[in-house]
């Protein structure tokens, strides 16, 4: 499933790096714990989180995660967007909860990591 199809499924708005929204996502992982995200060792993984800070972007950069969904309309500030653009990570804002986003994407065929 492409990143832009995922955004549609979760009422999401793509905030930046939109040029990458044709990329495919195969797996998703929901976490607010960055050390856990750093254990992700697969490709084409999407991160669903409520943690809207720079560390979510840095962690994704190191783990080669190319798309992050922020649940429940978290405020994403300019510094976060700037870093995501620099590192080529797509950010999506969704009004849904982590639980609902995970459920929607799971039933749409996105696979869990564990």
């Amino acid at each position, binding site marked *: 499933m492409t990143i832009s199809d995922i955004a549609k499924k979760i009422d999401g708005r793509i905030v930046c790096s939109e040029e990458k929204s044709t990329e495919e996502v195969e797996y998703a992982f929901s976490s607010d714990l*960055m*050390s*856990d995200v*750093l254990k992700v*060792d697969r490709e084409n993984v999407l991160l669903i989180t409520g943690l809207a*800070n720079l560390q979510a972007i*840095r*962690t994704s950069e190191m783990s080669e995660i190319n798309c992050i969904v922020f649940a429940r309309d978290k405020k994403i500030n300019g510094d976060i967007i700037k870093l995501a653009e620099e590192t080529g990570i797509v950010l999506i804002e969704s009004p849904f909860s982590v639980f609902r986003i995970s459920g929607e994407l799971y039933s749409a065929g996105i696979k869990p990591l564990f």
Partner: protein
Amino acid sequence: MQYRYKIAGGDFSNAGSVASSVKKILRQLNISHSVSKRIVIALYEGEVNIVAHAYSGIADVEIDSEKIRIVLTDKGPGIPDIPKAMEEGFSTASPQVREMGFGAGMGLSNMKKNSDTMNITSETGKGTVVELINYFSTDVR
């Protein structure tokens, strides 16, 4: 090749910038993603530890044809009991560190897992030195 970076304690906005720079260097050297990802994750956790637990630090990065060696040297409280600190789940992190998404006590074990060699020495009240070495090819390990 040798590089030196400064790391400021408490500065969460910059935590990860050293790992990001090293990742770019390894990309330019055409080091495979699977190899560079491990060392960059270990370095990032080490950087976060200096930001979270120490006052200031330096990352010395040395790259030759077969390996990358990183030495993280900080001024800080030190680690009184290293085996205890290595245990997954042990953490003295502040609530502020937890708000950043860290502080679950998984950093040092993540660093161990993602490096070929890791050595820690520490002096209580002075600081900590963490050495990380990763080889580019699995056969020279």
